[in-house]
C-alpha cells in the first residue's frame, strides 16, 4: 500500500487522535461490561443461567480475606505515619493533642479506602487480569462461549459482586488498623491512653465520614474489577501478552483509583 509521507505535526496529531479514540473505546467497553454483568445478576436466574454464588464467595475470599494481613500491616503503618507527621506539625502551634482529630478524619475519609483500593488493585486486579488473560490465550473463553456459558455471567459478574461487597468491608478493617496505629504512637509519644484516644476518635468521626470512605471504596472495587477483566479479555500474543496486560491492569487501576478519589473528594466536600 502506498502511503503519502506526512509531516511530524500531522503524525503527532494522528497519534493523539487515535489514543483518544482508544480511550473512548475502552471506557465504552467498561460501561457495556457494567451493564452486562448487572443484566446477568438481575435476570440470569429467570433465564436459567444464574450467576453462581459459590464463584462469588470464592472471589470474596481471594479479594478480601486473603489480603487482610497485608492490609493490616500497611494501614497500621499509615496510622503511625499520620500520627508522627501530625504531632510534628501541630507541635508548632502547641496543639499536639488535636492530632487525634486529624488521624480520625483523614483515615476514614481518605487513607482507609485509598490504601485498600491500591492494595486490592495490586493483589486481585493483577490476579484477575492474569487469570482471564491466560484463559483467553488458552481458548478457555472461546470454550465457555461455545458451551453456551456466557463469559461475562460466568467470570465477570461474580468478581463484580465480590469487589462491591468486600472493598467496603476491607476498608472498615483498614480504618480500624490505621486508627490503632495512630493510637499506639500517640500512646508512646504523648502518653495518651487508648481509652481516651478511642473516645476522642469516636466523638469526632460522624457516620458521614465513614459513609464517604465506604462509598469511595465501592467505586474503587468496580474500577478494579472492570480494569482487571477488560485487560484480561484484551490479551493477545501468548504468555508475554498476559504479562503486559497484567502490568497494565495494575497501573491503570491504581491511576483510575487515585483520579476517581480526587474527583470524589472534590465533589463530596464542595
Amino acid at each position: 500500500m502506498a502511503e503519502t509521507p506526512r509531516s511530524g505535526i500531522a503524525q503527532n496529531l494522528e497519534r493523539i487522535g487515535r489514543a483518544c479514540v482508544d480511550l473512548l473505546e475502552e471506557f465504552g467497553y467498561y460501561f457495556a461490561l457494567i451493564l452486562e454483568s448487572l443484566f446477568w445478576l438481575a435476570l440470569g436466574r429467570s433465564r436459567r443461567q444464574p450467576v453462581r454464588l459459590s464463584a462469588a464467595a470464592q472471589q470474596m475470599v481471594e479479594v478480601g480475606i486473603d489480603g487482610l494481613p497485608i492490609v493490616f500491616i500497611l494501614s497500621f503503618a499509615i496510622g503511625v505515619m499520620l500520627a508522627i507527621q501530625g504531632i510534628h506539625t501541630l507541635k508548632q502551634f502547641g496543639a499536639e493533642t488535636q492530632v487525634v482529630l486529624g488521624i480520625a478524619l483523614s483515615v476514614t475519609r481518605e487513607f482507609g479506602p485509598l490504601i485498600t483500593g491500591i492494595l486490592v488493585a495490586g493483589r486481585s486486579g493483577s490476579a484477575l487480569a492474569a487469570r482471564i488473560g491466560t484463559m483467553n490465550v488458552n481458548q478457555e473463553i472461546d470454550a465457555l462461549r461455545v458451551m453456551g456459558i456466557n463469559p461475562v455471567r460466568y467470570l465477570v459478574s461474580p468478581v463484580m459482586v465480590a469487589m462491591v461487597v468486600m472493598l467496603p468491608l476491607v476498608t472498615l478493617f483498614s480504618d480500624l488498623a490505621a486508627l490503632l496505629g495512630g493510637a499506639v504512637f500517640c500512646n508512646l509519644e504523648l502518653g495518651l491512653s487508648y481509652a481516651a484516644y478511642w473516645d476522642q476518635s469516636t466523638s469526632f468521626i460522624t457516620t458521614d465520614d465513614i459513609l464517604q470512605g465506604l462509598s469511595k471504596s465501592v467505586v474503587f472495587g468496580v474500577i478494579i474489577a472492570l480494569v482487571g477483566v477488560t485487560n484480561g479479555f484484551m490479551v493477545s500474543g501468548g504468555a508475554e501478552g498476559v504479562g503486559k496486560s497484567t502490568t497494565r491492569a495494575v497501573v491503570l487501576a491504581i491511576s483510575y483509583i487515585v483520579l476517581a478519589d480526587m474527583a470524589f473528594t472534590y465533589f463530596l466536600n464542595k
Partner: protein
Amino acid sequence: MNAAAAIEVEGLVTHYGSRLILDGVDFRVAQGEIMVIMGGSGSGKSTLLRHLLGLHAPTSGSIRLLGKDITRASADEMHELRTNMGVSFQGGALLSSMTVAENVMLPLREHTRLDEQTMNIVARMKLEVVNLGGFGDLRPSQLSGGMIKRAALARAIVMDPKLLFFDEPSAGLDPVVAAELDELIIKLRDSMQMTIVVVTHELDSAFKIADRITVLDRGRILLSGTVDEVRRSTNERVQDLLNRRPREEEIDADEYLRRLTGG
C-alpha cells in the same frame, strides 16, 4: 447427497481488520457425515471453523447450523443451538481451575437440572468412552497432550450433541495416539449419529476418517468431494498439498520489488 444438511454455508466472506480472509466460501455437510476441512496454514481453515462456531460475525454470507442461520439468530436461539453442539479445541481449552471430571461435567451443570449423581455418572461414562476412566480427579495440568485432547473430546460430547467440531485432533500427538483419536471419531459418528467437522492438516488422518473433504486455499474452496475425488483431483494446488510440495507462485517482479523496498 440427499440427506438433510446439518451445516450449510453460503457466500461466506470475512475480514480480519481490512484483510480479506475468506472469499465467498460455500459448503454443506450432510447429517451424520464426517467432513474434514483441509488446507495449509493461512488457508483460512481456522477462521472458517471460528465462524462455524459463531465466535465471529462474518462480513457477509449465511451459516446455517441444524437449519438455523447463526448470523441472524437471537441470543436465545444461539444458546439453544450451543447446547446441541460440542467443540474440541486444538489445545483442549480445559478450564485449568477445575479437575478433569468437573470440566466434563460443566455443560451439564450449567444447562441441565439433572441429579448430582446422574451428572457424575454421565461424566465418568464419557471419560470411559475416551479411555480416560479413573483420571477424572486430575487437573488438566497433570495430563499429557493426548490425554488433554481426549478429555476435551469427553467434554465436547457430554451433552450428546448433534454437531461435533474438532480442531486439529492429531496435531502434536504421536502416531499411535493420533490413530486412536481417529478411531474414536468414527466410533462416535457410528454409534451416536453425530455430524462431525474436523479441521486438520494431517493427510493420513483426513483420508482415514473423512466421508468428504473440503480443501481450502487462500480463502477459497479449491475442492469439496469424497476422499477418492480429492485423491484423483487434477488441481495443481490440491496435488501440491497431497504431495507436500512447497507452493510455487509466479512472481510479479514490480510488486515483489515494491514489497522489498517498501516504496
